[in-house]
């Protein structure tokens, strides 16, 4: 049996294995080399692959991501780290106007094979500028892929998939999961756009991704104790999201709750709910419900943050509401 890894070590191993497999893969970011990354996701990689392929960059988010685009257009496959997802605001031109559009606006002449890794999420009392879940912004941009690995196994496999994918991928890691332990399978399929049924059930579907998977599991356990069998779909990929898997589950359970940590309004859940309403309406026995963060910035103090984050209580209540 392989020794269980922490999520953050699975990230490091995926980066290491991708660099070993393909000399075009390089890492760039603030403190990723000598310091091994602020969350240690790149620990050991400088020694293993050298300073040319593992680059500490200045604190220049806009230009380091733009440089990754230029490197990708010149034969490299850069993996850039943005230390906190909140900081990606500084790099939006590079992501949205350059990386996402180069292939399309140049008439298919090129691809932009790059990955932007970044941690989102609360739970660490990091405050309003170090906790946001902004993945819906990127899912809204044609040309980008967005993935949120929730498990240790997926932290490895989906990052490998993202690096192998020819187009820009935003890999969002919930930093509250970095210490999570689990196993990886280096030979697992590296799929883009495939969801995973985390738990099978017949009475209602909980569609979720990222750290909210664990709130959904806790909710499903409590519901099971009351005789309600919830099916959990871990979306994994936000863009493209696995419509087939979601619609198949809706056809089975006829009830859906979409749960995520990001602000509920105008979020990923809104898109999925709208698609279920338009394309699977006849399968529904209840309105589609969402569980997300309130329309508020996330606060610092423990009690304030805890009040903000979507939890199992709210998922349980939402599932019961669909069954009422």
């Amino acid at each position, binding site marked *: 049996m392989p020794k269980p890894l922490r999520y953050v070590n699975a990230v490091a191993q995926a980066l290491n294995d991708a660099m070993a497999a393909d000399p075009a893969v390089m890492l760039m970011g603030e403190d990723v080399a000598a310091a091994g990354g602020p969350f240690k996701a790149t620990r050991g990689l400088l020694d293993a692959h050298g300073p040319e392929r593992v680059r500490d960059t200045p604190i220049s988010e806009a230009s380091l991501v733009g440089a990754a685009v230029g490197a990708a257009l010149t034969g490299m496959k850069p993996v850039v780290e943005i230390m906190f997802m909140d900081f990606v605001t500084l790099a939006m031109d590079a992501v949205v106007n350059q990386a996402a559009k180069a292939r399309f*606006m140049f008439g298919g002449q090129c691809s932009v094979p790059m990955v932007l890794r970044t941690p989102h999420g609360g739970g660490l009392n990091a405050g309003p500028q170090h906790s946001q879940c902004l993945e819906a912004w990127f899912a809204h941009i044609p040309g980008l892929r967005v993935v949120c690995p929730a498990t240790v196994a997926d932290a490895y496999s989906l990052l490998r998939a993202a690096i192998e994918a020819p187009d820009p991928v935003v890999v969002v890691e919930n930093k509250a999961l970095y210490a999570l332990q689990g196993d990886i399978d280096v030979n697992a399929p590296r799929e883009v756009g495939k969801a995973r049924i985390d738990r099978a059930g017949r009475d209602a579907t909980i569609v979720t991704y990222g750290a909210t998977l664990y709130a959904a599991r806790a909710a499903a356990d409590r519901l099971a104790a009351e005789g309600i069998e919830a099916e959990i779909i871990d979306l994994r990929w936000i863009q493209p999201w696995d419509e087939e898997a979601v619609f198949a589950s809706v056809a089975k359970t006829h009830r859906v709750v979409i749960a995520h940590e990001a602000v509920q309004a105008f979020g990923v859940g809104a898109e999925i709910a709208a698609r279920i309403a338009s394309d699977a309406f006849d399968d529904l026995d209840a309105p589609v419900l969402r569980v997300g963060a309130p329309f508020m910035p996330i606060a610092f103090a423990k009690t304030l943050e805890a009040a903000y984050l979507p939890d199992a209580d709210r998922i349980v209540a939402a599932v019961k509401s669909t069954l009422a």
Partner: protein
Amino acid sequence: MPSSAAQADPIPANSIPTDRRLALHRTMQTIRATETTLSRLFADGEIPGFIHLSVGQEAVAAGVVGALGPQDSFATTHRGHGHVLARGVRLDLFFKEIMGRAGGICGGRGGSMHVADLSLGVLGANGIVGAGLPLATGSALAHQTRRTGGVAVAFFGDGAMAEGALHECLNMAALWTLPMVFVCENNGWSEFSPTSTQFAATLDKLGAAFGVPHRRVDGNDVAAVAEAAAEVVEAARGGGPRILECLTTRWHGHFEGDPQRYRNADEIAGLPQNDPLRRSAEALLAAGVEESALAALVDSVDAEIRDALEAARADALPDADAAFRDVYTPTTLTAGA
């Protein structure tokens, strides 16, 4: 401030052989005639959208791009036609793109502000001021990491001196000794405003702050640009980043159709006094080139443009379904879009 030869660094007298000067002159003539043709087509309603013309700046494009080797790359600006033409993009594919035709180099998806030819190391014109700087920085990083021997050039205007990207990229290029040349086309105008009202520093001081050598040339003297570009490109190839500031002139508005009410009429009227084409022609005549040879060069360029324009006009508009292609790369990894 608009340029004058007096502000530029001194250069060695005319070290460029006549046949090379003729080639540079032809490149400039191609850019001038193309831009002038596009201006007319735009006024006649044959070009949709916005175009930004580089009439008056031809010597920078010819001199700098002419100094690049096949392995080199560059990113350019919204005023990028000249650079792309100087790199040798097929003229018919260029006209088709600007005119929004199916056979354009980008299939009509990009237009004037996004002309690119990756096969020639042209990483695209760009609709965002300063955005080409990080792209070129990354391209230089790739040249260095892959040991291609290539240099990446970032073209930017003086308006982009106020963008953070320039400051960030000078820092990165200097830290990493990147094979990169920062080429500033300083035409004195930041879109609709004089750059003197926009930027408190100067580019030489900015370069000095990062230890990046700066050279300023008369950007309307193609020989001076070519000589300086050759020097800085070769210096950058092994020795780290360089800045080449080319003092030049923008004859047209920020965009075509811009009435330029913000500009002094005398300044506009005086621009032809510093015409890079006329200056180049005079130098060639002084070097013994026959007037008839220059006239033949103009006719030959005109004929090429006529053919390219004819091909573009004959080309179909893109099919509507082309609007929905090439967002993602086809791959077996991908499930849906």
